[in-house]
């Protein structure tokens, strides 16, 4: 997997969740990480860094994940955003997909799900 040149943004208000996700990704390679602790920060970082992949929580202070997805996708319609959330109701999923999320990982995060997301995007060849 080619993660070395990849830029990954993790937006979650939980520092623990950000660390756990980073640890799983680091087991697969060493991309450049950017972090945000609320939806607005995630939007700001996205606009500045244009990451290849974004992991976003839904329930966050200042601006929630779905609002952040909408703004990011408005800025960049090709943005690749994966929701990582404990709130996996059908309506939340629908709202996230409508906003432009491409995948969903339910918390507590399972390492295999994250690896699958990485493999489908960064697999060599």
């Amino acid at each position: 997997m080619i993660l070395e040149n990849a830029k990954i943004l993790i937006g979650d208000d939980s520092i623990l969740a950000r660390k756990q996700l980073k640890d799983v990704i680091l087991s697969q390679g060493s991309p450049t990480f950017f972090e945000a602790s609320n939806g607005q920060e995630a939007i700001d970082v996205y606009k500045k860094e244009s990451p290849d992949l974004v992991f976003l929580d839904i329930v966050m202070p200042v601006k929630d994940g779905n609002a952040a997805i909408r703004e990011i996708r408005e800025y960049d319609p090709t943005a690749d955003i994966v929701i990582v959330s404990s709130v996996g109701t059908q309506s939340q999923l629908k709202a996230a997909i409508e906003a432009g999320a491409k995948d969903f990982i339910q918390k507590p995060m399972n390492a295999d799900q994250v690896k699958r997301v990485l493999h489908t995007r960064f697999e060599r060849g």
Partner: protein
Amino acid sequence: MYAQFFGNFLLSRNIVTCDQLIQAMKKKSTEHMKLGTLAIHASYMTAKEVDEIYIEQTHQDKRFGELAIKDGYLTKAQVTELLKDQGPDYLLLGQVLVEEGIIDNEQLQSLIIEYQSANELDDFVDYSEETQESIQHLVENFFVATERPLSAFEVSFLQLLFNNLIRFIGDDFTPVYPYPCTEYPTNYCVSQQILGEFSIKIFIDMTKSTAIEFASRYVGDTFDEFDEYVQSSIEDFLNLHNGLFNVNISNEHSVELNLTPPEREMTELLSFNNEGYLLPIVFPFGTIHFILVVTTSR
């Protein structure tokens, strides 16, 4: 879940001291045979299949047997057989207390009869609707002291809370009878609100040393100091529990609820109206206090 309530039953009747109960719950926890382990032993499931079900259980509030049948790993008859082998976990707690010389077999026998009849429990625990009902009944009985009837949503919320404590922290706890609470002096306290057809504000509070142990169990790592990861893990647990509750309510009742982000409570003394009640959960490493404030917004 029965053993935790049986522990409280023994404590409230002064059959055991708090210390004796904590030690016995700890020992019971190490001796408790999980259904997955029994399924591997019987060659009904592989370790990988068992692990898959454990992961599924962290995403949906269903019993091991129920999920194993749904996924085609076990038949109903096999689950029944394994549950019979496992036996009710409160019997194991009773056995530990007998082994420790705290009660004798005769006492245990009469305590079990008393406990079963007070909670309308049968000897045999299975995964049927009846068992589900008896767990609900157990939760309702337990909350009689709060002097307010629990709504069906509150019973679901509390049942899930006990299940999540077992799944993510450990089964060696004893819930102490909850009571109405108008004021509460905080230690490290985090709150989160569920909003929608009804509203629940839940607070979780514990001392810093308890928080370090709580986080170590929750994350499956060892923390030595009260750092930002320890603090974050308490918020994370609360957020996870409430998120799973919203999923349950959405799936079972088609009711959509929202969550606010978890927040640290900075005030030293929390004040509540009459709706608040305090639920202490005693673990060997310390006591976790939950405060629930339930209001209906209709």
